[in-house]
């Protein structure tokens, strides 16, 4: 068994930032990650990091833009914390050597981004995430933080009180991908989940293959609610053949979208008469698909993004990476031709419910970054707000887990007073269940007679034993269903029916397909008999995580019968503030999900945000 004060699960931007903060606060901290940290998906972020740094801008404007962009589903305390902490946290990155693009006077450059009332997106070319990831990793190396790389975390070790709010997390169970060894990692103070998004639930995504929602699924099954999972961001400019991201920076610098008839449709078809291409991502994604659906798409699939008029010099200075991506993955030279683009899954705005300090309702369990939902993005994330989220809330989670006092959080977590009762939605199948749990092993351990585990070590040992049995079970079969087939079925169902445009019948069809995936998973088996670097085994675990997370996305989308932000419904074309200014929460409850709600917090420090019609 390994033991540290703070265990960070995941080595991307949020995880590295959390580890640095916990280390600063005096904790013995370790990072456990299934990749090496520099392989994390944060490296693929392109556009930039929003921070109010300049005269004429201030955190209040940033907070206002974010609240408006969220379609009033963000919580004010979270959004104001983001906007207030972002400037200092961004400059800290600069002090650590981050190679931001520069102005003539040597200060960092900023550029316009969708939905922002001030050009506050600080950037490093079109590869901001790469630099951010590497700078954070450098600082982790400098501090000598222990890293267990290529260790896949299989489960959390959480006590099993009936009410999740009474439970405590004491550590994690992980296996060394290289050797197959399964071990416990005890966390004296806390576990911080920073495992990123679940983009692999869809088959056209900008997300890395490693983005399988592991942390979300583990927290969910341990009893933490997943919040607002129906809000999936589709990025309007991804390459059609691969899903590779073409940064919003292209439009920020002046790139133009055309349909097949050469019309600048954002204006000519009235999707966003003021902001045009720089309207919010949900607006642009719907506009593009509408063009395609109405027969004005190129090859009935995509539209064109043109940046040629910006000139080679400016493109090479600020968007060089985009030229490489378009060339390598689509065979298009962005200097002489427009680039083909279409919407692709990009970001999960929902996630593990946390407060402003990264804390969940389970004691000792934290989350930060894309896997978490402190609710800064609400129904729609503004471009450039993911990177400040991961440094701001990664840092806060690290501090808090290490014992630093950050003051009382305003956001409540868990099923407490003030929440609305469960939904009585009409579901086509019983979600969850499907017997996945039937094959789950249960090892005998010492308890205090009431069924409760008496100490952390015993709890962890039981958790380790359970995973060893599970692996033996998966590898002991000679025949069955391949994880790849289940994953493909899941991805197709999600892409077909839980995409940019959604309708009730489709969502029900998706739920039925997810149920079938669960049934197939009953017979899943690991063909590769080796303990050495068994990606077959790892992907089998990941596929289970994807099923659980995909189900929460679909359930949330089905019950929320309104149109808000990224969540568009055919039957409900209006935002319904009267009934839906509330978060959807889904808890794993004795083998199946239960759905309940919590009101949005629109009261900020000095003002209350009044919901307005969102127009661009």
């Amino acid at each position, binding site marked *: 068994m390994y033991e540290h004060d703070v265990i960070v699960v995941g080595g991307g931007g949020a995880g590295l930032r959390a580890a640095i903060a916990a280390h600063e606060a005096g904790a013995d901290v370790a990072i456990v990650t299934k*990749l*090496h940290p*520099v*392989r*994390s*998906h944060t*490296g*693929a972020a392109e556009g930039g990091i929003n921070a109010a*740094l300049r005269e004429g801008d201030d955190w209040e404007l940033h907070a206002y833009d974010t609240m408006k962009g969220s379609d009033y589903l963000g919580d004010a305390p979270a959004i104001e914390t983001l906007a207030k902490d972002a400037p*200092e946290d961004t*400059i*800290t990155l*600069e*002090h*650590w*050597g981050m*190679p*931001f693009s*520069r*102005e003539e006077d*040597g200060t*960092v450059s900023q550029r316009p981004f969708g939905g922002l009332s001030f050009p506050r997106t600080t950037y490093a*070319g079109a590869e901001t995430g*790469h*630099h951010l990831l590497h*700078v954070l990793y*450098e*600082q982790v*190396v*400098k501090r000598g933080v222990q890293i267990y790389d290529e260790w896949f975390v299989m489960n959390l070790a959480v006590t099993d009180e009936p009410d999740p709010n009474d439970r405590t997390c004491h550590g994690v169970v992980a296996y060394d991908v*290289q*050797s197959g060894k399964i071990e416990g990692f005890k966390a004296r103070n806390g576990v911080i989940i920073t495992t990123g998004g679940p983009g692999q639930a869809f088959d056209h995504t900008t997300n*890395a*293959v*490693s983005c399988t929602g592991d942390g979300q699924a583990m927290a969910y099954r341990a009893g933490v609610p997943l919040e607002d999972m129906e809000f999936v961001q589709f990025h309007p400019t991804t390459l059609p*053949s*691969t899903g*590779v991201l073409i940064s919003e920076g292209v439009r920020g610098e002046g790139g133009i979208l055309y349909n097949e008839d050469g019309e600048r449709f954002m204006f000519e078809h009235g999707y966003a008469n003021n902001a045009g291409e720089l309207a919010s991502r949900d607006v642009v994604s719907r506009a593009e698909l509408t063009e395609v659906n109405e027969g004005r798409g190129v090859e009935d699939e995509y539209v064109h993004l043109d940046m040629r008029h910006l000139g080679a010099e400016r493109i090479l200075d600020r968007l*060089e990476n985009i*030229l490489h*991506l378009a*060339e*390598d*993955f*689509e*065979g298009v*030279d962005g*200097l002489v031709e427009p680039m083909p683009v279409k919407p692709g899954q990009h970001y999960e705005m929902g996630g593990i419910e946390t407060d402003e300090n990264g804390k969940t309702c389970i004691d000792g369990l934290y989350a930060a970054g894309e896997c978490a939902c402190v609710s800064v993005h609400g129904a729609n994330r503004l471009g450039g707000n993911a990177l400040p989220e991961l440094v701001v809330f990664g840092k806060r989670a690290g501090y808090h887990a290490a014992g630093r006092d950050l003051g009382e959080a305003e956001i409540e977590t868990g099923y407490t007073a003030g929440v609305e009762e469960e939904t009585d939605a009409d579901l086509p199948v019983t979600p969850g269940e499907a017997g996945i749990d039937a094959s789950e092993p249960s090892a005998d351990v010492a308890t205090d007679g009431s069924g409760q585990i008496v100490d952390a070590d015993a709890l962890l040992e039981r958790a380790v034993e359970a995973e060893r049995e599970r692996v033996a079970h998966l590898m002991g079969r000679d025949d069955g269903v*391949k994880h*790849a087939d289940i994953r493909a079925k899941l991805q197709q169902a999600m892409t077909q029916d839980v995409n940019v445009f959604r309708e009730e019948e489709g969502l029900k069809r998706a739920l039925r397909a997810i149920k079938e995936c669960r049934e197939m998973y009953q017979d899943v088996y*690991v*063909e*590769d*008999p*080796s*303990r*050495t*670097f068994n*990606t*077959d085994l790892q992907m089998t675990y990941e596929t289970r995580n994807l099923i659980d997370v995909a189900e929460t996305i679909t359930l949330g989308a089905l019950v929320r019968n309104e149109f808000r932000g990224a969540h568009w419904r055919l039957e409900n074309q209006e935002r319904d503030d009267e009934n839906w200014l509330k978060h959807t929460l889904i808890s794993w409850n004795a083998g199946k999900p239960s759905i309940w709600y919590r009101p949005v917090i629109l009261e900020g420090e000095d003002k209350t945000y009044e919901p307005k019609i969102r127009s661009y």
Partner: protein
Amino acid sequence: MSTQQEQQTEPEEPETQEAPADQEMSGLASPQQQRLQRKEAGRLERERAAAEDDLEEETVHLKVFRFDPEVEAKQEPRFDDFHVPFERGMTVLDALIFARDEFDSSLTFRHSCRQAICGSDAFFVNGRQRLGCKTQISELDQPVRVEPLPHQEVVKDLVVEMEHFYDQMHAVEPYMQQEDLPEGDLEEMRQSRENREKIKMSTRCIWCGACMSSCNIAAGDNQYLGPAAINKAYRFAMDDREDEEIKEHRLRIIEQEHGVWRCQTQFSCTEVCPKDIPLTEHIQELKREAVKKNLKFW
């Protein structure tokens, strides 16, 4: 760990990587210009392949290196053949994923972002270090031979041990060491555009290890820092935001016995770098800096 094994050699030697004719040291073309030239060549090549159009109905023949220390049938290294249906735009990584998901679940390789930024899928493809995700099948001769990176210990199939590579990266103290920060938390350390431009290419390294694997010197001298680590040192040594004192400290690290002077300017690292970093040039520049500082010449 019992994963040590000899790299299996094919009857014919892989093409050796010699210095390219158009040496980048000459300064005739910037990396960007070279990139644009290569892009044009690549585009023409693709157009030609598309015109022939006979790949459409065909399959791709992959020969993939296999080895597993734990599985009896794979303890003796071998090549497995896979025939994967070709689709336009297919990369080496796409073909490997297809082979794994459809034919053999035990086929093992690292990959994640599939957009040339995570650096985990560097392989030895048709005798050259390349990123699987960035290499179009249509530009390769068949059969496409995929092997693990040479000169690295093989863990299993295409997965190699990267610890030594990381150790070398860490050995150059790869982090900003400027202690005198500006007054006030919101004041940045200013950097000129010229200085950012100077270090820009060096900051693009994705730690894939292709350069290290292609370097004859690194192959023969396990202690040699190697092109990636030296490039990392360059990134900081040339950053004006660090003081002279720190720069001198950095130069002392890289001019040690197994540092920059080991480089024999064969350009193999520069040739294979998927991010077009002028590695050899950076190493030469650090040699010049070391000479200027009157540091020891090995």
